[in-house]
């Protein structure tokens, strides 16, 4: 098996086994979205209007949950040192780790979104729109989070600092994700414009994320 294939397989195995965080994110997502209608009350129209925003905030927080251990687990047990002692570019290693992290924690959120949308009284078009924006947007969340995880890799309580560092940077993703979802069901607001910008942000993060994370990890080794 190729080196990167082996790394991907290992990351997936680690997240689905005992102590991994694969299910935690989606359970947290479920809880947040379920709790929300209790707070807002039984106004179905209000719920439908807030729905996309609730789903997006839930997904954002759920993504952040598992990110603090993305590099710290490898740093603590010495694996990170050994991962660095190869001619595989660190940027590629980071990208593979982020992909595995997204498959294990981000993808379940996307898959759970249609079901949870029903709790929030979204109409079918709205459900499709929220799911599509989450599919495009959650990789960007993971990649931005990866930079934060790399920066806080040597800090004991890094998780909290990670959230504080990362949340402001995710605001554009939140804005365009929610406005595309709302645009799909509300005239005359457009769906495609914010959706394309969301795609652009994700593609941009696909480049910046690995490079910035790798640079942060190298600095942390000193």
């Amino acid at each position: 098996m190729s080196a990167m294939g082996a790394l991907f397989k290992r990351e997936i195995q680690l997240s689905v086994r005992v102590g991994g965080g694969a299910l935690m994110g989606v359970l947290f997502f479920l809880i947040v979205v379920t709790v929300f209608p209790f707070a807002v009350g039984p106004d179905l129209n209000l719920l439908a209007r807030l729905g996309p925003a609730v789903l997006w905030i839930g997904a954002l927080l759920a993504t952040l949950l598992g990110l603090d251990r993305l590099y710290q687990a490898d740093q603590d047990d010495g694996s990170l040192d050994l991962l660095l002692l190869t001619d595989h570019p660190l940027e590629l290693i980071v990208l593979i780790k982020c992909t595995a992290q997204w498959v294990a924690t981000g993808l379940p959120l996307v898959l759970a979104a249609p079901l949870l949308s029903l709790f929030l009284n979204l109409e079918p078009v709205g459900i499709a729109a929220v799911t599509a924006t989450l599919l495009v947007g959650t990789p960007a969340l993971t990649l931005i989070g990866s930079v934060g995880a790399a920066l806080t890799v040597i800090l004991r309580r890094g998780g909290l600092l990670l959230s504080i560092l990362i949340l402001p940077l995710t605001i554009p993703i939140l804005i365009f994700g929610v406005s595309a979802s709302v645009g799909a069901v509300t005239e005359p607001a457009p769906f495609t414009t914010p959706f394309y910008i969301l795609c652009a942000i994700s593609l941009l993060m696909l480049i910046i994320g690995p490079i910035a994370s790798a640079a942060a990890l190298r600095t942390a080794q000193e």
Partner: protein
Amino acid sequence: MQLIVNGLSCIRGGRPVLENVSFTLEQGKALVVTGPNGIGKSSLLRTLAGLVHANAGTVKLEGGDEELSVGQQAHYFGHADAIKPALTLKENLDFWQSFYGSPTRTAYEALLEVDLGDLIDMPAAYLSAGQRRRLSLSRLLVCHRPLWLLDEPTSALDAASERKLEILMAEHLEKGGLIIAATHAPLGLLNPDRLELGREQIADPFADDELFEQDQLQESQQ
């Protein structure tokens, strides 16, 4: 193949931990690095591996792969075990074999060498400290790298395992490998080179005279 280290210096936290360390290690030879705690034995190994940035000096593996750095041709066996408790022994080893390439033994053969053969499908979480250490050691056996950097290799090992380690090191040297070990324990190596790290990086006055002269000779060769 020989490892040439010239004028290596390293500053960490504003304090010099290595000052002008020079030595040459011939193919099939081992170098034992000794010295009191905190003198920079681990830092020396990490600097040689390239995990810590050297402020001055060069490290070169002559006759090695020109494309690769010294660290990429070295197995680093540090204090951390780099073991994932959720994975089985076989999965732990298979990953490093695929990731590092140039396989030599299968995971099972390597585990037999360290007397863990019958635990191959057990999650590493169930291992004792000494067994973890041996599993970590078997990582050096599944893929070939000419230089072994061993940091306190005998810690947590029982007498029988120490014997085993001696045999494995002797085999590696016989095949033309190089070993640098930082240790307080006698390693049972046949006539190794010695490097005593001290305040002024002088050779150990208590080491036997012939070895002492050998060191002096090598240092003057630089």
